[in-house]
């Protein structure tokens, strides 16, 4: 009986309270608590397109994306990078994480069935919250793997070109990277959906920048780039929150 009374009262009281929400003792006026980076959300649209057996919540995608962006510069090997991208969210099971990372690297991103043997054997649920701990780790690794692959352009003599498309809230960013590997020369052409600029960092702090005030193409180039080194490419869009997307360019040997 009391339940009904409380529910009824609470419902009724809401009206007055919504019109005049309470202030807490330390608040001198309306406060802004949501200081989280909303800039990231510009880029997450593309991430939703990543094929996963269970979709990851936006929050997870943003975290993984953020980690991957930071890791692009690191000199870790691919496998270690992958683990590092995810272990910030799942610090408790490093061994399991390593093992799962191995599987993700070996199997193509589109066939998670290979991973099933290593998770609990159960199939992936339709909702993230229903997944087991190891399934969640596996999903995060798959997403991080895909993100790192997309953000990294590896150019060799046999494969001297890389193309990337990235869907943002402002429209599509199109990237085309061309290399003359033996000469260490890399040129980049980008189509920006709105005003922004392209910054390509070469050796010893050299920067090649191209800027435009509206949507269209920009191009930059760098010389004397070393093999097996990582060079960063920043795409900055002039949206209300200044935000950038970073790619990694690497020149390598054919295997």
């Amino acid at each position, binding site marked *: 009986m009391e339940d009904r009374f409380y529910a009824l009262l609470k419902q009724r009281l809401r009206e007055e309270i919504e019109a005049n929400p309470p202030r807490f003792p330390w608040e001198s006026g309306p406060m802004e*608590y949501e*200081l989280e980076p909303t800039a990231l959300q510009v880029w997450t649209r593309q991430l939703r397109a990543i094929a996963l057996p269970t979709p990851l919540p936006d929050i997870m995608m943003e975290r993984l994306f953020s980690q991957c962006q930071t890791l692009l510069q690191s000199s870790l090997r691919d496998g270690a990078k992958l683990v590092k991208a995810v272990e910030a969210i799942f*610090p408790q099971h490093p061994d399991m994480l390593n093992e799962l990372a191995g599987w993700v690297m070996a199997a193509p991103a589109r066939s998670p069935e290979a991973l099933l043997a290593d998770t609990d054997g159960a199939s992936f649920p339709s909702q993230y919250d229903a997944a087991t701990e190891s399934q969640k780790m596996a999903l995060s690794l798959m997403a991080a793997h895909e993100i790192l692959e997309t953000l990294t352009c590896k150019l060799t003599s046999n494969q001297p070109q890389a193309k990337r498309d990235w869907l943002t809230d402002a429209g599509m960013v199109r990237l085309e990277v061309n290399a003359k590997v033996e000469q260490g020369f890399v040129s980049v052409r980008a189509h920006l959906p709105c005003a922004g600029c392209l910054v390509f960092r070469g050796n010893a702090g050299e920067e090649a920048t191209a800027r435009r005030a509206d949507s269209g193409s920009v191009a930059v180039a760098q010389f004397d780039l070393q093999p097996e080194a990582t060079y960063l490419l920043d795409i900055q869009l002039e949206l209300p929150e200044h935000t950038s997307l970073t790619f990694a360019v690497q020149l390598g040997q054919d295997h």
Partner: protein
Amino acid sequence: MEDISQQLYSELKQATRASDRNCRDVAERIAVEVARICAESQRIQASGDVDAWSLSLARHRLTQCLKYYQLKSNRGRVELHSTLSAVVYRYITPPQVQASYQARLSLIEDFLQGFYIEAINAFRRETQLLPTYSPRSLLELSEYMAFAERYAKRRIPLPGRRSQQLIILRAQTFSQQQPPETLVDIEQAAEGASSDSEPTRSSASLQQVREQMVAQEPEVAESALRDAVVTQLMAYLEDKQQQDCADYFALRLQDLPANEIETILKLTPRQRDYLQQRFKYHLIRFALSHHWELVHQWLEADLERNFGLTPWQWQQLQTQITDQQAEMLQLKQQGMADAAIAQTVGCTVNQFQKQWTKLLEQAWEIRNDLVSGAADSSHEE
């Protein structure tokens, strides 16, 4: 505890956009509190599965915190404030003045402002944060709101093996408008003056407050029978899709005056009057339906007591009912089951129940005719 802290940290990172530092701090605070509770609880220690308890308690706190996080700053505080306001509503009474919805609301505002201060101080103390700490991020704000709700609902032991929620005790003190100097620590008052080293200056106030607390307790449920009737009547009303009658009933059970009921349900006095009549109609239908025994027993008007009729009234009933009904009455008095009676008198069970209901209605009318005033008030229950 380290495990729990890490687990919570991981879950916070998956469910919020809060910084690493925030996630770590909040996870740590929950883990520490849970560890303390488990260590202090004899029940948990004796259970043999402290880990499972720890995890369960931690999960519960995390879920509560995330509930507020997902509502965000504005809707979160509205949720907290309405919850707490509903809990203290009937304990906040303006002194010497008839309570009205608006008057209570205004007092509740003042009361809760004070309560929020008490809650943040308690939070700082219990988590060993600086006295200057205040929530800055959404996660920290959610943590505070979840704490405030838990703190409000903490059970404080009272004399006589009873307990009451902390915020209700606070509300009662507030209503009595104790001047600040004599405001005593309610927990101290509840436990009684335990140590002699406490100054006796405040012991008179302590005694007074304790007496008031016990006196202020709303009536303890009268009897199991009344509870059964109330529960079944409520279920009956809900079953018949009479939601507004059920709401009205819920408010009447709290002894709220008519004008307050009008304000809460947003009715004009005339509308409330119609609702009251509809409620009475359903009440009678309920009383005369297959729940009749329960209600009649409660009204002390069951068959063993001749429907509560005097001998003269009983005679009158005999003259009014049909022969078939008289036979049914006799067989019922002998304790025969409905199906058997129906068969004996030569009708279906449905027909028997119809006849029986008519019989009850007539007894009801007779009983009410002679003592109309008193009988009506027993209807109101």
